[in-house]
Protein backbone atom coordinates (compact mmCIF):
# COMPACT_ATOMS: atom_id res chain seq x y z
CA UNK A 1 0.00 0.00 0.00
CA UNK A 2 2.07 2.90 -1.16
CA UNK A 3 0.85 6.42 -0.60
CA UNK A 4 -0.66 7.08 -4.01
CA UNK A 5 1.74 8.67 -6.38
CA UNK A 6 0.67 8.73 -10.02
CA UNK A 7 2.55 9.93 -13.00
CA UNK A 8 -0.09 9.59 -15.74
CA UNK A 9 -3.74 10.32 -16.35
CA UNK A 10 -5.79 13.46 -16.23
CA UNK A 11 -4.63 15.26 -13.13
CA UNK A 12 -5.68 18.74 -14.18
CA UNK A 13 -6.70 21.17 -11.48
CA UNK A 14 -7.82 24.64 -12.54
CA UNK A 15 -10.17 27.55 -12.00
CA UNK A 16 -11.60 29.71 -14.76
CA UNK A 17 -13.19 33.10 -14.01
CA UNK A 18 -14.47 31.88 -10.68
CA UNK A 19 -16.62 34.11 -8.53
CA UNK A 20 -17.60 33.23 -5.01
CA UNK A 21 -19.57 35.24 -2.48
CA UNK A 22 -20.44 34.56 1.12
CA UNK A 23 -23.49 36.73 1.71
CA UNK A 24 -22.46 40.27 0.93
CA UNK A 25 -18.74 39.45 0.99
CA UNK A 26 -17.13 38.73 -2.38
CA UNK A 27 -14.22 36.36 -1.75
CA UNK A 28 -13.19 35.47 -5.30
CA UNK A 29 -13.81 37.74 -8.25
CA UNK A 30 -12.96 36.32 -11.66
CA UNK A 31 -10.20 34.10 -10.26
CA UNK A 32 -8.35 31.92 -12.76
CA UNK A 33 -5.47 29.53 -12.12
CA UNK A 34 -4.01 26.39 -13.61
CA UNK A 35 -2.21 24.18 -11.11
CA UNK A 36 0.41 22.13 -12.91
CA UNK A 37 0.10 18.46 -11.86
CA UNK A 38 2.74 16.65 -9.80
CA UNK A 39 4.31 19.85 -8.50
CA UNK A 40 4.14 21.69 -5.22
CA UNK A 41 2.08 24.90 -5.23
CA UNK A 42 2.33 27.19 -2.25
CA UNK A 43 -0.67 29.51 -1.89
CA UNK A 44 -0.10 32.61 0.17
CA UNK A 45 -2.21 35.56 1.12
CA UNK A 46 -3.45 37.44 4.14
CA UNK A 47 -6.02 35.92 6.48
CA UNK A 48 -9.51 36.03 4.96
CA UNK A 49 -8.20 36.55 1.43
CA UNK A 50 -9.82 33.35 0.14
CA UNK A 51 -7.15 30.62 0.45
CA UNK A 52 -9.54 28.24 2.20
CA UNK A 53 -12.33 29.05 -0.26
CA UNK A 54 -9.98 28.28 -3.14
CA UNK A 55 -9.08 24.86 -1.66
CA UNK A 56 -12.71 24.07 -0.86
CA UNK A 57 -13.72 24.88 -4.43
CA UNK A 58 -10.99 22.60 -5.79
CA UNK A 59 -12.05 19.85 -3.35
CA UNK A 60 -15.64 20.10 -4.59
CA UNK A 61 -16.94 21.20 -1.20
CA UNK A 62 -18.18 24.54 -2.57
CA UNK A 63 -19.74 25.45 -5.88
CA UNK A 64 -18.65 28.65 -7.63
CA UNK A 65 -21.31 31.33 -8.10
CA UNK A 66 -19.91 31.86 -11.58
CA UNK A 67 -17.05 30.43 -13.62
CA UNK A 68 -15.73 26.90 -13.66
CA UNK A 69 -13.68 24.61 -11.44
CA UNK A 70 -11.95 21.84 -13.37
CA UNK A 71 -10.69 18.65 -11.83
CA UNK A 72 -9.20 15.87 -13.95
CA UNK A 73 -10.90 12.48 -14.05
CA UNK A 74 -7.92 10.75 -12.43
CA UNK A 75 -7.54 13.15 -9.51
CA UNK A 76 -7.74 11.37 -6.16
CA UNK A 77 -7.87 13.87 -3.37
CA UNK A 78 -6.46 14.02 0.12
CA UNK A 79 -6.86 17.06 2.36
CA UNK A 80 -5.67 18.49 5.64
CA UNK A 81 -8.34 20.94 6.71
CA UNK A 82 -7.87 23.96 8.92
CA UNK A 83 -9.54 21.92 11.67
CA UNK A 84 -8.32 18.41 12.47
CA UNK A 85 -11.61 16.69 11.56
CA UNK A 86 -10.77 13.44 13.34
CA UNK A 87 -13.16 10.76 14.60
CA UNK A 88 -12.82 11.42 18.31
CA UNK A 89 -13.61 7.87 19.43
CA UNK A 90 -11.08 6.16 17.18
CA UNK A 91 -7.35 5.64 17.73
CA UNK A 92 -4.77 7.62 15.79
CA UNK A 93 -4.01 4.62 13.56
CA UNK A 94 -7.74 4.06 12.83
CA UNK A 95 -8.07 7.75 11.92
CA UNK A 96 -5.02 7.73 9.68
CA UNK A 97 -6.30 4.58 7.96
CA UNK A 98 -9.84 5.94 7.51
CA UNK A 99 -9.47 6.99 3.84
CA UNK A 100 -8.51 3.39 2.95
CA UNK A 101 -11.82 1.94 4.16
CA UNK A 102 -11.83 -1.81 4.65
CA UNK A 103 -8.46 -3.53 4.29
CA UNK A 104 -8.08 -7.33 4.26
CA UNK A 105 -5.88 -8.73 7.06
CA UNK A 106 -2.63 -8.94 5.13
CA UNK A 107 -2.88 -5.38 3.77
CA UNK A 108 -4.04 -4.14 7.15
CA UNK A 109 -0.94 -5.52 8.89
CA UNK A 110 1.31 -3.97 6.27
CA UNK A 111 -0.41 -0.60 6.46
CA UNK A 112 -0.42 -0.66 10.25
CA UNK A 113 3.35 -1.12 10.21
CA UNK A 114 3.59 1.83 7.80
CA UNK A 115 1.36 3.94 10.04
CA UNK A 116 3.32 3.13 13.18
CA UNK A 117 6.62 3.99 11.50
CA UNK A 118 5.11 7.28 10.30
CA UNK A 119 3.80 8.12 13.76
CA UNK A 120 7.13 7.42 15.38
CA UNK A 121 8.91 9.55 12.77
CA UNK A 122 6.56 12.44 13.60
CA UNK A 123 6.99 12.03 17.36
CA UNK A 124 3.51 10.60 17.96
CA UNK A 125 2.86 7.96 20.62
CA UNK A 126 1.66 4.64 19.19
CA UNK A 127 -0.96 3.38 21.64
CA UNK A 128 -4.62 2.39 21.98
CA UNK A 129 -5.94 5.77 23.16
CA UNK A 130 -8.78 7.40 21.21
CA UNK A 131 -7.63 10.66 19.63
CA UNK A 132 -9.84 12.74 21.96
CA UNK A 133 -7.17 12.04 24.60
CA UNK A 134 -4.33 13.44 22.47
CA UNK A 135 -3.00 17.00 22.69
CA UNK A 136 -3.81 19.62 20.05
CA UNK A 137 -0.40 19.28 18.39
CA UNK A 138 -0.60 15.50 18.32
CA UNK A 139 -4.07 15.59 16.76
CA UNK A 140 -2.80 17.96 14.08
CA UNK A 141 -0.05 15.52 13.16
CA UNK A 142 -2.60 12.68 12.94
CA UNK A 143 -4.62 14.80 10.49
CA UNK A 144 -1.51 15.46 8.38
CA UNK A 145 -0.55 11.77 8.33
CA UNK A 146 -4.11 10.79 7.34
CA UNK A 147 -3.69 13.05 4.33
CA UNK A 148 -0.18 12.06 3.22
CA UNK A 149 -0.72 8.31 3.75
CA UNK A 150 -3.99 8.36 1.79
CA UNK A 151 -4.06 6.73 -1.62
CA UNK A 152 -4.30 10.18 -3.23
CA UNK A 153 -2.35 11.88 -6.00
CA UNK A 154 -3.48 15.43 -5.20
CA UNK A 155 -3.06 16.79 -1.70
CA UNK A 156 -4.62 19.98 -0.38
CA UNK A 157 -3.22 21.47 2.83
CA UNK A 158 -4.91 24.35 4.60
CA UNK A 159 -2.40 25.90 7.00
CA UNK A 160 -1.35 22.45 8.22
CA UNK A 161 1.52 23.55 10.46
CA UNK A 162 -0.36 26.31 12.26
CA UNK A 163 0.38 26.35 15.99
CA UNK A 164 3.15 23.72 15.81
CA UNK A 165 6.52 24.38 17.42
CA UNK A 166 9.61 24.53 15.22
CA UNK A 167 11.09 21.22 16.32
CA UNK A 168 7.86 19.34 15.59
CA UNK A 169 7.52 21.11 12.24
CA UNK A 170 11.02 19.96 11.28
CA UNK A 171 10.28 16.36 12.26
CA UNK A 172 6.95 16.35 10.42
CA UNK A 173 8.32 17.96 7.27
CA UNK A 174 11.35 15.65 7.18
CA UNK A 175 8.87 12.78 6.97
CA UNK A 176 6.18 14.42 4.83
CA UNK A 177 8.53 16.07 2.28
CA UNK A 178 9.65 12.91 0.42
CA UNK A 179 6.11 11.46 0.60
CA UNK A 180 4.54 14.40 -1.25
CA UNK A 181 7.37 14.94 -3.72
CA UNK A 182 5.72 13.08 -6.61
CA UNK A 183 2.23 14.38 -6.09
CA UNK A 184 0.32 17.54 -6.82
CA UNK A 185 0.45 19.57 -3.63
CA UNK A 186 -1.49 22.75 -2.86
CA UNK A 187 -0.17 24.19 0.37
CA UNK A 188 -1.99 27.23 1.78
CA UNK A 189 -0.08 29.22 4.36
CA UNK A 190 0.73 32.76 5.39
CA UNK A 191 4.19 31.82 6.65
CA UNK A 192 6.84 32.41 3.97
CA UNK A 193 9.31 30.15 5.74
CA UNK A 194 7.24 27.15 4.66
CA UNK A 195 8.32 27.73 1.04
CA UNK A 196 11.68 26.23 1.99
CA UNK A 197 10.08 22.82 2.55
CA UNK A 198 9.48 22.34 -1.19
CA UNK A 199 11.77 21.96 -4.13
CA UNK A 200 10.98 24.44 -6.88
CA UNK A 201 7.44 25.29 -5.77
CA UNK A 202 5.02 27.48 -7.73
CA UNK A 203 4.12 30.43 -5.54
CA UNK A 204 0.56 31.73 -5.78
CA UNK A 205 -0.94 34.76 -4.16
CA UNK A 206 -4.62 35.14 -3.28
CA UNK A 207 -5.57 38.74 -2.79
CA UNK A 208 -8.44 41.10 -3.64
CA UNK A 209 -10.48 38.25 -5.08
CA UNK A 210 -7.80 37.18 -7.57
CA UNK A 211 -5.34 34.30 -7.73
CA UNK A 212 -2.00 35.02 -9.37
CA UNK A 213 1.47 33.50 -9.66
CA UNK A 214 4.35 35.48 -8.21
Amino acid sequence: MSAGSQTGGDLALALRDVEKDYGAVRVLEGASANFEPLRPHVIMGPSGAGKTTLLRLLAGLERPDAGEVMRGADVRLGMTFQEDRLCENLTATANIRLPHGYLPDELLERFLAEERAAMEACGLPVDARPVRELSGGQRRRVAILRCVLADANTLLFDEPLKGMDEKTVDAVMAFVGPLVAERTVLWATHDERELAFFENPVLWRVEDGHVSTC
Partner: protein
Amino acid sequence: MARAGERGTEKDGRLRTWAARLACVAFWLVVWEFGARAIDARIILVGPLEVLARLAELATTGEFWASVGVSLGRIGVGFLAAVVAGTALAALASRATVVRELLAPVMGAMKAVPVASFVILVLLWVSSSYLSMVIALVMALPVVYANVLEGISQTDPKLLEMCDVFGVRGWDRVRLVYASEVLPYFRVAVTLALGLSWKAGIAAEVIGLPDFTIGEHLYDAKVYLDTPDLFAWTVAIVAVSVALEALVKRVMGRLMERWEARP
Protein backbone atom coordinates in the same frame (compact mmCIF):
# COMPACT_ATOMS: atom_id res chain seq x y z
CA MET B 1 3.04 10.03 45.90
CA ALA B 2 0.57 12.87 45.53
CA ARG B 3 -1.28 10.76 42.94
CA ALA B 4 -1.51 7.83 45.37
CA GLY B 5 -2.83 10.21 48.01
CA GLU B 6 -5.44 11.57 45.61
CA ARG B 7 -6.49 8.05 44.67
CA GLY B 8 -6.80 7.14 48.35
CA THR B 9 -8.99 10.18 49.05
CA GLU B 10 -11.11 9.39 46.01
CA LYS B 11 -11.59 5.81 47.24
CA ASP B 12 -12.49 7.05 50.73
CA GLY B 13 -15.02 9.45 49.20
CA ARG B 14 -16.61 6.68 47.18
CA LEU B 15 -16.78 4.41 50.24
CA ARG B 16 -18.43 7.19 52.22
CA THR B 17 -21.00 7.75 49.47
CA TRP B 18 -21.84 4.05 49.36
CA ALA B 19 -22.02 3.88 53.16
CA ALA B 20 -24.43 6.83 53.18
CA ARG B 21 -26.60 5.21 50.49
CA LEU B 22 -26.71 1.89 52.33
CA ALA B 23 -27.56 3.68 55.56
CA CYS B 24 -30.51 5.41 53.86
CA VAL B 25 -31.76 2.11 52.41
CA ALA B 26 -31.37 0.45 55.82
CA PHE B 27 -33.31 3.30 57.43
CA TRP B 28 -36.30 2.82 55.10
CA LEU B 29 -36.17 -0.96 55.49
CA VAL B 30 -36.39 -0.50 59.26
CA VAL B 31 -39.28 1.98 58.85
CA TRP B 32 -41.01 -0.53 56.53
CA GLU B 33 -40.52 -3.39 59.02
CA PHE B 34 -41.82 -1.34 61.96
CA GLY B 35 -44.71 -0.05 59.84
CA ALA B 36 -45.72 -3.60 58.95
CA ARG B 37 -45.55 -4.69 62.57
CA ALA B 38 -47.55 -1.65 63.68
CA ILE B 39 -50.30 -2.25 61.08
CA ASP B 40 -50.18 -5.95 61.82
CA ALA B 41 -52.33 -6.91 58.84
CA ARG B 42 -50.52 -9.15 56.29
CA ILE B 43 -53.11 -8.36 53.66
CA ILE B 44 -52.19 -4.67 53.66
CA LEU B 45 -48.48 -4.68 54.32
CA VAL B 46 -45.81 -7.30 54.98
CA GLY B 47 -42.38 -6.46 56.33
CA PRO B 48 -39.14 -6.83 54.39
CA LEU B 49 -38.02 -9.84 56.40
CA GLU B 50 -41.14 -11.79 55.50
CA VAL B 51 -40.84 -10.70 51.85
CA LEU B 52 -37.26 -11.89 51.78
CA ALA B 53 -38.22 -15.21 53.36
CA ARG B 54 -41.00 -15.68 50.78
CA LEU B 55 -38.65 -14.78 47.94
CA ALA B 56 -36.09 -17.30 49.19
CA GLU B 57 -38.85 -19.91 49.33
CA LEU B 58 -39.98 -19.08 45.77
CA ALA B 59 -36.41 -19.18 44.51
CA THR B 60 -36.11 -22.84 45.47
CA THR B 61 -38.96 -23.79 43.11
CA GLY B 62 -38.50 -24.60 39.46
CA GLU B 63 -41.64 -22.68 38.59
CA PHE B 64 -40.09 -19.42 39.81
CA TRP B 65 -37.08 -19.75 37.53
CA ALA B 66 -39.20 -21.01 34.64
CA SER B 67 -41.48 -17.98 34.98
CA VAL B 68 -38.54 -15.55 35.18
CA GLY B 69 -36.97 -17.30 32.17
CA VAL B 70 -40.16 -17.22 30.06
CA SER B 71 -40.85 -13.54 30.85
CA LEU B 72 -37.24 -12.60 30.28
CA GLY B 73 -37.03 -14.53 27.02
CA ARG B 74 -40.19 -13.08 25.50
CA ILE B 75 -39.53 -9.51 26.60
CA GLY B 76 -35.88 -9.91 25.52
CA VAL B 77 -36.90 -10.96 22.00
CA GLY B 78 -39.26 -7.96 21.72
CA PHE B 79 -36.56 -5.63 23.03
CA LEU B 80 -33.89 -6.94 20.65
CA ALA B 81 -36.31 -6.67 17.73
CA ALA B 82 -36.94 -3.04 18.75
CA VAL B 83 -33.19 -2.32 18.88
CA VAL B 84 -32.66 -3.77 15.39
CA ALA B 85 -35.80 -2.21 13.88
CA GLY B 86 -35.31 1.16 15.63
CA THR B 87 -31.71 1.41 14.41
CA ALA B 88 -32.62 0.39 10.86
CA LEU B 89 -35.59 2.79 10.71
CA ALA B 90 -33.46 5.63 12.10
CA ALA B 91 -30.84 4.94 9.42
CA LEU B 92 -33.54 5.00 6.74
CA ALA B 93 -35.17 8.14 8.17
CA SER B 94 -31.82 9.94 8.21
CA ARG B 95 -31.42 9.19 4.49
CA ALA B 96 -34.97 10.01 3.35
CA THR B 97 -36.98 12.93 4.67
CA VAL B 98 -40.18 11.27 3.49
CA VAL B 99 -39.50 8.26 5.73
CA ARG B 100 -38.76 10.55 8.68
CA GLU B 101 -41.97 12.52 8.14
CA LEU B 102 -44.02 9.36 7.64
CA LEU B 103 -42.66 7.79 10.81
CA ALA B 104 -42.98 10.89 13.00
CA PRO B 105 -46.73 10.46 13.82
CA VAL B 106 -46.32 6.69 14.30
CA MET B 107 -43.47 7.11 16.78
CA GLY B 108 -45.32 9.96 18.48
CA ALA B 109 -48.41 7.78 18.90
CA MET B 110 -46.35 4.87 20.24
CA LYS B 111 -44.91 7.17 22.87
CA ALA B 112 -48.22 8.82 23.79
CA VAL B 113 -50.66 5.87 23.88
CA PRO B 114 -50.92 4.28 27.36
CA VAL B 115 -49.49 0.77 27.74
CA ALA B 116 -52.89 -0.59 28.85
CA SER B 117 -54.55 0.54 25.61
CA PHE B 118 -51.81 -1.09 23.57
CA VAL B 119 -52.11 -4.29 25.58
CA ILE B 120 -55.85 -4.62 24.99
CA LEU B 121 -55.46 -3.78 21.32
CA VAL B 122 -52.60 -6.21 20.81
CA LEU B 123 -54.57 -8.95 22.60
CA LEU B 124 -57.12 -8.69 19.82
CA TRP B 125 -54.41 -9.38 17.25
CA VAL B 126 -52.02 -11.90 18.77
CA SER B 127 -52.13 -14.74 21.30
CA SER B 128 -51.41 -13.75 24.89
CA SER B 129 -48.15 -15.75 24.69
CA TYR B 130 -46.72 -13.15 22.32
CA LEU B 131 -48.24 -10.16 24.09
CA SER B 132 -45.25 -9.18 26.23
CA MET B 133 -42.97 -9.56 23.20
CA VAL B 134 -45.03 -7.10 21.15
CA ILE B 135 -45.44 -4.68 24.06
CA ALA B 136 -41.69 -4.69 24.79
CA LEU B 137 -41.11 -3.91 21.12
CA VAL B 138 -43.70 -1.13 21.07
CA MET B 139 -42.21 0.50 24.18
CA ALA B 140 -38.56 0.28 23.11
CA LEU B 141 -38.92 1.10 19.42
CA PRO B 142 -39.60 4.87 19.64
CA VAL B 143 -36.84 5.32 22.25
CA VAL B 144 -34.22 3.53 20.15
CA TYR B 145 -35.42 5.20 16.96
CA ALA B 146 -35.39 8.74 18.42
CA ASN B 147 -31.96 8.40 20.06
CA VAL B 148 -30.23 6.78 17.10
CA LEU B 149 -31.76 9.32 14.71
CA GLU B 150 -30.57 12.12 16.99
CA GLY B 151 -27.07 10.59 17.01
CA ILE B 152 -27.00 10.38 13.21
CA SER B 153 -28.25 13.95 12.81
CA GLN B 154 -25.66 15.18 15.33
CA THR B 155 -22.80 13.66 13.32
CA ASP B 156 -20.37 16.47 12.63
CA PRO B 157 -20.95 17.69 9.04
CA LYS B 158 -17.25 18.54 8.88
CA LEU B 159 -16.45 14.84 9.29
CA LEU B 160 -18.81 14.05 6.44
CA GLU B 161 -17.07 16.66 4.28
CA MET B 162 -13.76 14.99 5.13
CA CYS B 163 -15.26 11.68 3.96
CA ASP B 164 -16.44 13.31 0.73
CA VAL B 165 -12.95 14.57 -0.02
CA PHE B 166 -11.24 11.26 0.73
CA GLY B 167 -13.94 9.29 -1.10
CA VAL B 168 -15.05 7.35 1.99
CA ARG B 169 -18.56 6.21 1.07
CA GLY B 170 -21.22 3.60 1.72
CA TRP B 171 -20.62 0.97 4.35
CA ASP B 172 -17.13 2.32 5.17
CA ARG B 173 -18.67 5.67 6.08
CA VAL B 174 -21.26 3.96 8.29
CA ARG B 175 -18.67 1.70 9.94
CA LEU B 176 -15.99 4.30 10.51
CA VAL B 177 -17.77 7.61 10.98
CA TYR B 178 -21.44 7.14 11.81
CA ALA B 179 -20.88 4.15 14.13
CA SER B 180 -18.27 6.06 16.08
CA GLU B 181 -20.49 9.14 16.36
CA VAL B 182 -23.77 7.33 17.06
CA LEU B 183 -22.46 4.77 19.57
CA PRO B 184 -22.85 7.02 22.67
CA TYR B 185 -26.48 7.77 21.68
CA PHE B 186 -27.11 4.09 21.01
CA ARG B 187 -25.80 3.20 24.43
CA VAL B 188 -28.20 5.63 26.14
CA ALA B 189 -31.07 4.37 23.98
CA VAL B 190 -30.47 0.72 24.87
CA THR B 191 -30.21 1.40 28.60
CA LEU B 192 -33.36 3.56 28.63
CA ALA B 193 -35.40 1.21 26.48
CA LEU B 194 -34.39 -1.88 28.44
CA GLY B 195 -36.01 -0.71 31.69
CA LEU B 196 -39.11 0.49 29.85
CA SER B 197 -39.54 -2.78 27.95
CA TRP B 198 -39.12 -4.92 31.04
CA LYS B 199 -41.66 -3.04 33.15
CA ALA B 200 -44.20 -2.66 30.33
CA GLY B 201 -43.76 -6.33 29.36
CA ILE B 202 -44.59 -7.47 32.89
CA ALA B 203 -47.60 -5.11 33.00
CA ALA B 204 -48.79 -6.68 29.75
CA GLU B 205 -48.45 -10.15 31.27
CA VAL B 206 -50.61 -9.10 34.22
CA ILE B 207 -53.39 -8.17 31.77
CA GLY B 208 -52.87 -10.93 29.20
CA LEU B 209 -52.09 -13.71 31.72
CA PRO B 210 -49.93 -15.99 29.59
CA ASP B 211 -48.97 -19.22 31.45
CA PHE B 212 -45.76 -19.48 33.47
CA THR B 213 -44.88 -15.80 33.49
CA ILE B 214 -44.10 -13.29 36.22
CA GLY B 215 -47.25 -11.34 35.29
CA GLU B 216 -49.44 -14.38 35.90
CA HIS B 217 -47.97 -14.80 39.39
CA LEU B 218 -48.52 -11.13 40.17
CA TYR B 219 -52.15 -11.49 39.09
CA ASP B 220 -52.60 -14.61 41.21
CA ALA B 221 -51.17 -12.76 44.21
CA LYS B 222 -53.78 -10.04 43.69
CA VAL B 223 -56.69 -12.48 43.26
CA TYR B 224 -55.77 -14.52 46.36
CA LEU B 225 -54.81 -11.41 48.35
CA ASP B 226 -51.39 -12.99 48.83
CA THR B 227 -49.48 -9.83 49.73
CA PRO B 228 -46.17 -11.59 50.60
CA ASP B 229 -46.18 -13.15 47.10
CA LEU B 230 -46.98 -9.79 45.50
CA PHE B 231 -44.03 -8.15 47.27
CA ALA B 232 -41.70 -11.09 46.63
CA TRP B 233 -42.43 -11.11 42.87
CA THR B 234 -42.06 -7.33 42.78
CA VAL B 235 -38.64 -7.59 44.42
CA ALA B 236 -37.72 -10.26 41.86
CA ILE B 237 -38.81 -7.94 39.00
CA VAL B 238 -36.72 -5.09 40.38
CA ALA B 239 -33.72 -7.37 40.96
CA VAL B 240 -33.87 -8.70 37.37
CA SER B 241 -34.23 -5.15 36.05
CA VAL B 242 -31.22 -3.87 38.01
CA ALA B 243 -29.11 -6.92 37.09
CA LEU B 244 -30.04 -6.64 33.40
CA GLU B 245 -29.26 -2.94 33.29
CA ALA B 246 -25.90 -3.46 34.99
CA LEU B 247 -25.07 -6.34 32.65
CA VAL B 248 -26.01 -4.45 29.51
CA LYS B 249 -24.12 -1.33 30.66
CA ARG B 250 -21.05 -3.41 31.40
CA VAL B 251 -21.17 -5.36 28.14
CA MET B 252 -21.71 -2.19 26.10
CA GLY B 253 -18.96 -0.37 27.99
CA ARG B 254 -16.55 -3.23 27.24
CA LEU B 255 -17.60 -3.33 23.60
CA MET B 256 -17.10 0.43 23.29
CA GLU B 257 -13.68 0.23 24.90
CA ARG B 258 -12.68 -2.52 22.48
CA TRP B 259 -14.13 -0.59 19.57
CA GLU B 260 -12.22 2.53 20.53
CA ALA B 261 -8.95 0.69 21.14
CA ARG B 262 -8.85 -0.96 17.70
CA PRO B 263 -5.53 -0.13 16.07
